[in-house]
């Protein structure tokens, strides 16, 4: 029994890792006022590039680096459409998802099903990993796990405690006012979208070179969409995203546990979205000001228009 609990929790941490990475990225992006529905696609791109590079060079870290670069690059498409062209962000984000899914399938065709010989090794943190219970759950995880938590904390710090953070958040709240204060709104938005893309790709890399050590088309399996729901669930706060992502990760794991008991997996797959709706409802009823959604999220901004 004890073993089951420990291994469930351990797998919860694993399952929460890509969710946390992608959510942190989406939070940064949405805080600047740009809605990016391309997470799922960029994740797939990240997964496939990380896999191919790791396989051919034998270096998982190089795989990670190239994946991040690829994710950032492809996100520029969404940035260009929604910032420079002021296009509809929903449409452009969906297009990015389709593009990412399609492209990754095409690039990765000849790699499907091949095993990865050198994967990203787990790190056992000395001393801590020997702790009973906690050691297994928290301190013998993949580097992605530690990185995800660290990056979420750093992002929180940047958004809340630095000038750049104030500028990014202001841009999402009121781009016109922000621009009159001498801040270059489109530059900041580009930056945020591109950083967000890097995070999504990193999440994808986790899937292919640490979590499953193989590449199959569509292996992101809706995690990108969950990250978008999580962004709302975490009320656009990377600090809150940490526990929220692992709660959602838990739901993921429980899906597999409960399936043999005859509970429909489709029902469980719905849970993250239902949870998001519920939290939105609760907060709006209690104190809508706490919702914290960037006021100008998904609104194209054009200078000189009142």
């Amino acid at each position, binding site marked *: 029994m004890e073993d089951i609990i420990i291994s469930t929790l351990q797998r919860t941490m694993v399952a929460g890792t890509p969710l946390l990475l992608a959510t942190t990225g989406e939070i940064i992006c949405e805080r600047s006022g740009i809605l990016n529905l391309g997470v799922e696609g960029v994740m797939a791109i990240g997964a496939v590039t990380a896999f191919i590079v790791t396989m051919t060079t034998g270096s998982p870290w190089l795989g990670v680096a190239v994946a991040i670069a690829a994710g950032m690059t492809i996100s520029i498409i969404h940035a260009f459409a929604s910032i420079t062209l002021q296009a509809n962000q929903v449409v452009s984000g969906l297009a990015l998802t389709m593009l990412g899914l399609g492209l990754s399938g095409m690039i990765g065709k000849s790699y499907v099903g091949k095993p990865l010989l050198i994967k990203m090794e787990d790190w056992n943190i000395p001393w801590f990993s020997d702790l009973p219970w906690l050691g297994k759950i928290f301190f013998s995880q993949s580097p992605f796990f530690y990185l995800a938590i660290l990056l979420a904390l750093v992002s929180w710090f940047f958004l809340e405690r630095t000038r750049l953070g104030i500028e990014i958040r202001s841009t999402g709240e009121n781009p016109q006012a922000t621009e*009159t204060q*001498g*801040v270059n709104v489109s530059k900041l938005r580009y930056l945020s979208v591109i950083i967000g893309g890097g995070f999504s790709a990193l999440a994808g890399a986790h899937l292919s070179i640490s979590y499953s050590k193989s590449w199959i088309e569509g292996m992101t399996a809706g995690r990108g969409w969950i990250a978008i729901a999580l962004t709302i669930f975490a009320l656009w706060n990377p600090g809150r995203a940490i526990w929220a992502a692992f709660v959602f990760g838990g739901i993921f794991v429980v899906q597999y546990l409960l399936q043999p008991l005859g509970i429909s997996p489709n029902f469980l797959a719905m849970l993250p979205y239902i949870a998001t709706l519920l939290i939105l409802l609760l907060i709006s009823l209690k104190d809508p000001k706490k919702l914290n959604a960037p006021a100008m999220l998904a609104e194209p901004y054009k200078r000189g228009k009142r």
Partner: protein
Amino acid sequence: MKKIQTLEMKKISKSFHGIFANKDIDLKVESGEIVGLLGENGAGKTTLMNILYGLYQPDSGQIRINNQDIRINNPVESINFGIGMVHQHFMLIQNHSVIENIALGYKETPFFFPKIKIREKVEQFSEKFNFNIDPDKKVWQLSAGEQQRVEIIKALLNGADLLIFDEPTSVLTPEEIKELISIFRQMKASGHIIIFISHKLDEIMDICDRVVVLQKGKIVGSTDTKDTDKKSLARIMVGRDISFNIDKKKIARGRKILSVDSISVMGDKGLDAVKNISFELFENEIFGVAGVSGNGQRELAEAITGIRPIYSGKIKINGSDITNKSPRDIYDTGISHVPEERIKFGIAPGLFLYDNAVLKQHHLKKFSRRWFLKYSKIKNHTEDIIKDFNVSTHSINSQIRNLSGGNIQKLILGREISEQPQLLVASHPTYGLDVGATQFLRRHLLSLRKQGSAVLLFSEDLEEIFELCDRIAVIFDGEFMAILDSDDKNLSEIGPMMAGSKRLKKQ
């Protein structure tokens, strides 16, 4: 030595949808000069300044700094040239604190832990210039006057060489205006250039060295203030004489309309904003509430009009209880409301003029049949408001956000008071209106009074209060310090009462 010695705008033109907002404007300013920009609502003042600030690009014309041609493509460039601006519509991030708003614009904000340094700066500034502001409040919790103070602090901290103030004093108190004027004088002495837009001619005469008058996008006059006076400025601006005297005849007040019985109301911060206030209001009466903004005026107005819950006390209109009824129910009993932040709460910016003209009335029989609106009636009604209130717009089919600030104000006023309400609750009703419109509105309030309406007027403009009101209450920290008749001797002490250092309990 200042970066900007002279700045010239040459033959600047700008049109929107084929209609000129600025036409062939020439304007030259020099170091150490305070220039006033005057003109009716919609004359093109804000447009011209937005061009200088890089928010709009002119269709034609040149800008020159120190005799060199330059281009200003965006506000970032304009700030780098040494230009700063306080905008007519507050450019503040509503969900952020005062500190974060100031940190955003301040050049020397440190990268890490910016709030610590800015807090110090704001405290120093508030102390030096007597501008009181709570740096941790979120902007949406501030009154209009407080928001204006934040805007001014933002602009002054950066110390630009050329500062544009687009109606900075519209909701400041007389004391604060004095402070601001003395700051202007100091800046002038050290070689700054100030361009100052205001509809208050006294201020213009007092502050500016020179005044430039715009009319329908063109310059129609430019003179030194010492060679002119209020009357002739108004004449140049409007093209006819304007009388500044309003004669208010004494009339006997009628039935009691409103009774407010020891109400208390919570502010946005969760503290009491209105504490145990009682008063009554009668037909044929204008009741003024004077006080520094942020002392509970907004909460009181919102409580009476049903926007904000009242947790103790009672409000009755014509003897029937309306405490905590919905805003629409209260509107239907005959109470109209002109809110303080009209641009934010009073309009739907993307809708057309005619939609906005019936935002509150669309459910009435006049304007709708079941689920359908009677658009021809609505449009006629809109045309009437536009005529009566002299709203300048090229068509009622344009989006209301494209109107100039003052013209938006006029349309909202028209909507609220065209119905002849039993009780009109008006907060700063002349805020942003040009001289002609201000006089029109004041007369209109008096005529409502004559026809039997009651008016509850919130204003920081003491002159306006004295001119219009039959009785005056002084509010401080959520309490009435006194309720005085307009001929009461104690009115001379209204200053100390507004500051909370004197209290007269009469009732």
